[in-house]
């Protein structure tokens, strides 16, 4: 069973803080993704990565950056957290071919 692990289930951060959200997968998947989920908007893609060191902007990259130094780990960075970044953040991974994504359990981030 593929496992995608997000290090924190709940986080509360202050406005202006630098925030790191960590995601680790254990199945040697090349592709990893960060989404945020907001009511009425579904899941929106922030960034994704095809392989180590590679990254591409998704649909809403503003205010975020990512890091993929090792294949199994994909980090989402909020450079200066703002209240409009309060959301549920979901990490996913998949093998290069095939249609299935595996999601982590999510991190509920609140910025105060």
């Amino acid at each position, binding site marked *: 069973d593929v496992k*995608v692990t997000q290090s924190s*289930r709940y986080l509360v951060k202050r406005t202006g803080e630098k925030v790191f959200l960590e995601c680790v997968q254990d199945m040697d998947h090349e*592709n990893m*993704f960060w*989404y945020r989920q907001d009511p*009425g*908007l*579904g*899941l*929106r*893609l922030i960034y*994704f990565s*095809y392989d180590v060191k590679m990254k591409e902007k*998704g649909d809403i990259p503003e205010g975020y950056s990512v890091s993929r130094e090792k294949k199994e780990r994909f980090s989402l960075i909020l450079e200066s957290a703002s209240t409009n970044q309060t959301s549920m953040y*979901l990490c*996913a991974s998949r093998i290069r*071919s095939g*249609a*299935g*994504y*595996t*999601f*982590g*359990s*999510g991190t*509920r981030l609140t910025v105060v």
Partner: protein
Amino acid sequence: DQQVKQNSPSLSVQEGRISILNCDYTNSMFDYFLWYKKYPAEGPTFLISISSIKDKNEDGRFTVFLNKSAKHLSLHIVPSQPGDSAVYFCAALKEYGNKLVFGAGTILRVKS
């Protein structure tokens, strides 16, 4: 620009009856369509998918129908069970570009 739309925010169904969840898309270039199920405080879990070259795929109580001319797909759950109560996301995938695009989700409530 919403490429995948779920126009019903919620649906309520009696246990044992059929649940029909609908989804429309705008881009004819999608290769796969997928349905994910999500419980609160958990990540989405893959339910069923359909290739763009097919019009029906069945897996147990779940059947997905694809109408390419109408750019419409639907998920049928028969018979519905209380444990099916969750948020259902429709998603579409273009293999080139490797991005999964989600709808806003539909909350399904199955009443016993």
